[in-house]
């Protein structure tokens, strides 16, 4: 990527495995309970154009716990409502003294656009249907707390891949480390084009086939807000693709169940699966803090 401030995290696609490993190593050195003041005096601008619970709070806690100051800008209640453009908002926040900007935006490529025009690093906290790199990093971090390596792991991503920025980032990351990734969903959610994201991807339309023998099952949320005119019958989807205890039994005994949240119990997974012993859903959220601490530290160039 051209002319982007060092320390920016815009996507997983353009990161190499070495960068990712370095970030994960840094994340393991972060202790949210006894944080070092690595961001003292640093101003972290959180610019959120879309709702967020996990990502926003964990970036905020990550920054504050290391002594950084955070300012939250939401699209409602700011000049964004008055029609200020993304770039003008970005210039404004840079002018008030932001040291790093964390942005979530409904438009794919919005963080890159900002990064191309700003001097400070930009961190993508989710852009449209494109990528959600910090989520992929915390998922890798979580998997690696349970599995020795990503290489050779059987990972299933099940659900609405088409609309999912989480899936795109996860697929890039897992493939870079040699995991065997199987994608599963109906054609509306999983067009054959998805195969282009990385070499060696598999697609299946049957949940049972996908889950059989899996080490990790990543369940995606059905994103009703992005369905825009798509005709998909939720009852059919539930019947064919919902992760149930019966389907989970087909996976390896120690298979990990993951979900980026927010989960919709009874839709993409059952209540029982969400809370089963193999579920890492809550742990993922927990791991979001050290991983985002590492992302912020990398952006602001401290802690060698």
């Amino acid at each position, binding site marked *: *990527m051209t002319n982007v401030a060092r320390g920016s995290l815009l996507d997983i*696609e353009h990161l190499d495995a070495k960068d990712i490993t370095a970030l994960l190593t840094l994340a393991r050195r972060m202790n949210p309970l006894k944080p070092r003041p690595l961001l003292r005096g640093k101003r972290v601008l959180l610019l959120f154009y879309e709702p967020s619970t996990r990502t926003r709070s964990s970036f905020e806690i990550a920054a504050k716990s290391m002594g950084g100051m955070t300012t939250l800008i939401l699209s409602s209640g700011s000049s964004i409502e008055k029609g200020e*453009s*993304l*770039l003008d908002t970005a210039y404004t926040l840079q002018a008030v003294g932001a040291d790093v900007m964390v942005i979530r*935006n409904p*438009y*794919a*490529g*919005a963080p*890159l*656009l900002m990064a191309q025009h700003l001097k400070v690093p930009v961190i993508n906290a989710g*852009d*449209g*249907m*494109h*990528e959600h790199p910090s989520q992929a990093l915390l998922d890798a971090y979580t998997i690696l707390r349970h599995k020795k390596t990503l290489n050779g792991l059987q990972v299933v991503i099940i659900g609405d891949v*088409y609309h999912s*920025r989480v899936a*795109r980032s996860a697929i890039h990351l897992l493939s870079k480390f040699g995991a065997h990734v199987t994608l599963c969903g109906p054609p509306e959610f999983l*067009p054959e*084009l*998805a195969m*282009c*994201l990385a070499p060696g991807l598999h697609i299946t339309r049957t949940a049972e086939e996908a889950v059989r023998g899996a080490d990790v099952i990543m369940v995606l949320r059905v994103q009703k807000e992005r369905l*825009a*005119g798509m005709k998909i019958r939720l009852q059919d989807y539930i019947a064919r693709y919902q992760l149930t205890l019966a389907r989970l039994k087909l996976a390896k005994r120690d298979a990990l169940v993951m979900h980026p949240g927010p989960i919709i119990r009874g839709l993409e997974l059952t209540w029982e699966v969400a809370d089963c012993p193999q579920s890492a859903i809550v742990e993922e959220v927990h791991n979001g803090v050290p991983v985002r601490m590492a992302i912020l530290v990398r952006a602001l160039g401290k802690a060698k």
Partner: protein
Amino acid sequence: MADKSKSGSLLIKGGHLIDPAARINTPMDVLLRDGRVADVAPTNKIRGGTDETFDAHGLVVAPGFIDLHVHLREPGQSYKETISSGTAAAAAGGFTSVCCMPNTSPVVDSVEWVAWLQQPQRGAVVNIFPIAAATQASKGAVLTDFRGLQRAGAIAVSDDGRPILNESIMRETLRLAAEIGLLVIQHAEDTRLTENCSMNESTTSFRLGLRGMSAATEASIVDRDVQLSQQFTGARLHVAHLSTAEGLKAVRRGKRSKARITCEVTPHHFSLTDADVGDYNTYCKMNPPLRSAADREALLVALADGTVDAIATDHAPHATHEKIIEFEKAMFGITGLETALGLAIARLHREQKISLSRIVELFTAGPARVGDLRGRGTLARGNYADVTIFDPKKRWTFEAAKSRSKSRNTPFDGWPLTGKVVATIVGGKIVYKSN
């Protein structure tokens, strides 16, 4: 040589004349007098004094180029372009005539606006042929006054950018236009299926998380329109900026039928593919979108084999604030008047070995036939003295900052091009000369 010639006479001497409609591809001198072609003869055979002489040694002399598809943005959007700036860009690109689309603000759907476009106060430096809206405000509901619009100077009707989807409205459009011999231009896109889409459906769109337009949304409309056209004797349907292999097949089917079907292709569709969108380059966002490599290949074949009737630029200037924004929010379209010839020669002639004569045909006789622009597209004696003189071998780099257009939205900034316009002559008067 002189910079300006009013009426009077101008002898273009020593050049190589390529006039495909007249089957001329040989050194010839051309004499222009009183706004018309007075004589075309072998080098040094034209005797008698002339007011001015243009030395065209080493250059190609061609009938004036005609662009069937430009957006000049007036009335109403002069921050993007004006008729004056847009036609200056046209002249620099070798175009002596441009046909301007009606999707302005307001839409050119009345006799008054068609007349307004042609008034001398607009400051056009090349010929303007208005294309009027087919339906009021291009809303696709109520037809405009075709007869009146034609009388006022409209050469075609089109709801460009807002294709006529309603079948009965399209049938009425074709029927009424056929009655008076008016051309109907359709932007072939089933917009019911492309809502919120910002590029071609492809591996690139999937990777970027952008909603993709399927290639099928073009062919389905072309097929339907071809079928409707066949119902009316004299109907002339022109498919704007054709972009897909499937769309081409539909055009070929149409050309085999008794209907009069023509089509145009833009320089960007024969030069670029959807992969050029890269990481959200909004200068590669246009509609129809850049398509797959296979689609581009099909266009190259069709440009060579005669299926395509014209190269048209779809010159679509936009202000910076409409382009340097989020990809999905950015306006569709790029400028194209000044890069068309350089791209055609670099891509079609040098790379694809398409003859210069065929390329000139796509810029002259082809579009003149499509638009039924009588007295243009060929330098027959008595025709309008519209001439384009270019150096087919000149290698140069296009610099957007030096464009005569008011806008800079082009993916070709800094591109090496081959073939450069040296002079553009409209009605016997030199309106552009390169230095």
